[in-house]
């Protein structure tokens, strides 16, 4: 499976594309992703006005786990594409698979027909076909690309894409590294899904136990009974876990120890991309503060922190100044603490820093159920009787976990197990599992855009979108309806400014991604609100963003947990001229 036909190679070279990756003994990694990388001055970066990518079957192995993969130009992660703001690029994608494929440029503002979602932006790329994407590059920053067909993204079809600003580099550093975080399972994603349908908690081996109860761990008996009564599991943090996943940095597991080099005192920019299928990561470098300088590709006012939860599909640029130690461990820990991966920043290859022991698995709380009663008079000893209003002042507010009045637009079918009775805005909350760690943790409220928000208008209207699910049946939807159930598109007028309120009716964080647009998170005073393409909506909570619908066309809007999207937690968003030139 690893053979590379000379024909392919000739084709690449004929396209004038530099191809150094994947051939010979260097194995399956492009140079920037190879361990011992000196940084991004490596020759195998794809850049220029014409780029060729070939998607083909492959195999990938890490940490003793090996399986079928789908790769771009025979590498995992896929090659780095490095573009320059202001250029126009033509990217020819050739499909050598037996099934359809596609590539979506995640976070890029492209004409919708170049966005790469089969059935929405174009018909997809059939086996044997070459599709040429062509678009002007009108932005800068750290982005990525991945398949939007089937489950290919989960089996290797993802890679980084960096755009240099027109006016020279922002936040110039002596060195930069790209870190692509991913999860890798030898079990095919379709089989993962089938097992989750058999048993919602199939991959969770960190549930509460009787042994734990006797040892005084986790919830006390009373809480366990209350949660059991609601059929809710406070350990349900991640659907797919380290039971089957290996966690990777640039395709390297902990043992393979991807190492990026530095010289003491250098300012090193780390462009970190969470390209996982199903894993949100807690990212930290013990001993080294992280200065956040960009989020989802766009510059933010520098803010120093110690740990950042990077949800799936988000990107962050950090500046670090390593020096005191010969080596630093770069730790990406799955948020359910079922596994982690350590990479290294080191003065020279071979140096390692200690791998920290994995931290204790967190437990969800009532706040994650959309029932935060902090400070509220709940009657005796904060006891909560879910069957009736909590007290007189609450009359009219059922504390039922499935009160239809809190989400009138959501049909309450088998796919909607719960509705958050009192969801609160959680943009300023520390993310799941980092509530109590004893160092600084980034929240969305800490982010301020460096550039003024481009559209100062107050939204003329707002819409609510409920993130809905039934974990036991493993069903996922928006507003209680899966995309495949005939859900209507969400319509916007071209140029319209709309507030979108995302309400998480589940107990899991959902990284919600809108194609073809940036939106401003509604946190802090208007003017310099953080602009993102993906927002992680914390369990039981709300997150609002203001959107200027300036991308004419049809776009995908979905949870970036691949199985959630694939199960229907997705909508088509239409942006059309008023009066319909359509």
């Amino acid at each position, binding site marked *: 499976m690893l053979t590379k036909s000379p024909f392919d190679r000739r084709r690449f070279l004929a396209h004038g594309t530099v191809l150094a990756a994947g051939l010979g003994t260097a194995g399956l990694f492009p140079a920037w992703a190879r361990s011992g990388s000196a940084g991004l001055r490596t020759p195998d970066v794809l850049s220029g006005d014409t780029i060729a990518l070939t998607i083909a079957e492959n195999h990938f192995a890490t940490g003793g786990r090996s399986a079928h993969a789908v790769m771009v130009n025979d590498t995992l992660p896929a090659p780095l594409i490095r573009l320059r703001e202001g250029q126009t690029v033509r990217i020819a994608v050739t499909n050598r698979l037996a099934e359809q494929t596609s590539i979506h440029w995640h976070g890029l*503002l492209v004409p919708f*027909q170049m966005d790469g979602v*089969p*059935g929405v932006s*174009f*018909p*997809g790329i059939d086996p044997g076909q070459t599709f040429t994407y062509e678009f002007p590059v*009108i932005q800068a920053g750290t982005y990525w690309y991945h398949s939007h067909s089937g489950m290919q993204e989960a089996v290797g079809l993802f890679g980084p894409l960096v755009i240099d600003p027109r006016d020279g580099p922002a936040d110039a550093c002596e060195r930069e590294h790209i870190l692509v975080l991913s999860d890798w399972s030898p079990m095919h994603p379709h089989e993962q*899904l089938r097992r989750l*349908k*058999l048993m919602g908690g*199939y991959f969770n081996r960190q*549930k*509460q136990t009787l*042994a734990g109860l006797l040892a005084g761990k986790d919830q006390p008996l009373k809480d366990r009974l209350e949660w*059991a*009564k609601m059929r809710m599991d406070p350990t349900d943090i991640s659907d797919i876990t380290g039971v089957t996943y290996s966690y990777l940095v640039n395709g390297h597991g902990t043992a393979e120890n991807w190492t990026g080099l530095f010289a003491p005192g250098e300012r090193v920019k780390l462009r970190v991309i969470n390209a996982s299928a199903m894993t949100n990561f807690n990212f930290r470098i013990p001993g080294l503060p992280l200065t956040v300088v960009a989020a989802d590709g766009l510059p933010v*006012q*520098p*803010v*120093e*922190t110690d740990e950042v939860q990077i949800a799936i599909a988000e990107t962050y640029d950090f500046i670090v100044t390593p020096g005191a130690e010969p080596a630093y461990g770069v730790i990406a820990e799955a948020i359910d603490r079922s596994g982690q991966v350590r990479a290294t920043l080191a003065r020279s290859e071979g140096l390692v820093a200690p791998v920290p022991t994995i931290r204790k698995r967190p437990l969800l709380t009532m706040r994650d159920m959309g029932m935060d009663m*902090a*400070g509220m*008079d709940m009657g005796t000893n904060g006891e909560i009787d879910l069957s009736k209003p909590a007290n*007189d*002042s609450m009359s*009219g*507010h059922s504390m039922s976990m499935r009160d239809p009045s809190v989400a009138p637009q959501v049909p309450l079918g088998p796919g909607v197990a719960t509705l958050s009775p009192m969801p*609160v*805005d959680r943009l*300023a*909350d520390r993310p799941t599992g980092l509530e109590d760690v004893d160092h600084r943790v980034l929240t969305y*409220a*800490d982010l*301020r855009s460096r550039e003024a928000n*481009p*559209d100062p208008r*107050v*939204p*003329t*209207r707002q*819409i609510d979108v409920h993130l809905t699910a*039934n974990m036991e049946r493993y069903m996922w939807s928006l507003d209680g309806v899966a*995309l*495949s159930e005939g859900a209507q598109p969400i*319509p916007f007028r*071209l*140029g*319209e*400014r709309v507030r979108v*309120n995302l309400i998480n009716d589940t107990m899991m964080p959902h990284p919600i991604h809108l194609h073809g647009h940036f939106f401003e998170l509604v946190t*802090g*005073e208007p003017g310099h609100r953080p602009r993102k393409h993906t927002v992680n909506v914390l369990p039981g909570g709300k997150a*609002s963003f203001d959107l200027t619908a*300036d991308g004419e066309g*049809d776009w995908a809007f979905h949870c970036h947990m691949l199985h959630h999207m*694939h199960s229907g937690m*997705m909508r088509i968003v239409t942006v059309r001229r008023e009066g319909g030139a*359509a």
Partner: protein
Amino acid sequence: MRRPFAAALIAAPALLIATPALAQDATDPHAGMDHGSMNMSGMDHSGTDHAGMDMSGPEPDAADEGAESTAVAEPAAHAGHNAASPPSAADTPGNAPPPPVPADMAAEAFYPRAVMQRSLNATLAEMRFRGSAVQVDQLEYRANNGKDGYGFEGMAWYGGDIDRAVLGFRGEGAFGETPETLELSGTWRHALDPWYNLQLGLRQDLGTGPDRTYALIGIEGLAPYWLEVDGQLLLSNKGDVRARAGVATNLRITNRLILEPEAEIDLAFQDIPEIAIASGLEKIELSARLRYEFSGMFAPYVGVFWERKLGDTARLARAQGEGAGTVSAAAGVRFAF
């Protein structure tokens, strides 16, 4: 970064911004609520902002608690941004109507409609779950005094989230004899709500004694406290009516060592002498199985299984020289594929 088109559209909406907050007051179903008695930390209930309680409302800048996390390199940038500052009323969205949902696909400008429609249909078809599995909950050796035997129970299914075709099988007996019971069922399983399924179908009994065919209607599901429950009403081809109810749960001693107690009763609504069953409670089964989950797909177990015929059915059994009750030690395997 903004797309080039947009300049012209920064228009009228400013007119709308003043009204919505007031409009909300008038229509807010929670307007009469006593906010004063609810100290929701960090939330601002002053002025026109009902964000904390209005489930559909905007929530600018609410809930800043827990944000003492990160030092900001440019603190000035955060001036005015904290829990105490009321969100500006000017930041409240209006209530303009949404545009109509377009009937066409934008990509029709580039590809034939039929091509795009086919592509969309293929994408949607792939998102509809269709699967199948064989799940054998029990396949066990039962040792009791003198007459060792076996028991099994499981199902095979095909279908989606809402509707599934289920083939159920279950039986028990002593080695070397005709199976004491052998039940095969074919049912349509339909999800009724998040937790419960309807079962409709047929059950064929092929064990000792004359065969019977039953029409079956049942409910199965997950009750509060993680109890797996099921209840079935059976109407035989001879006009007899019987019923069965069961409950089971999984007690996790560790994440791999799991104790599953289970109880089941059968009852008949009339005497059925042909199969030695009398009106009333027929039989109760109690069991507990302790399994070790190598994975959700494979778990060997040991357990005890106790069954006892009841009432007149027990008397009939004794009259035929059988015991009314049996205790067995069980060892077996639970698996799925």
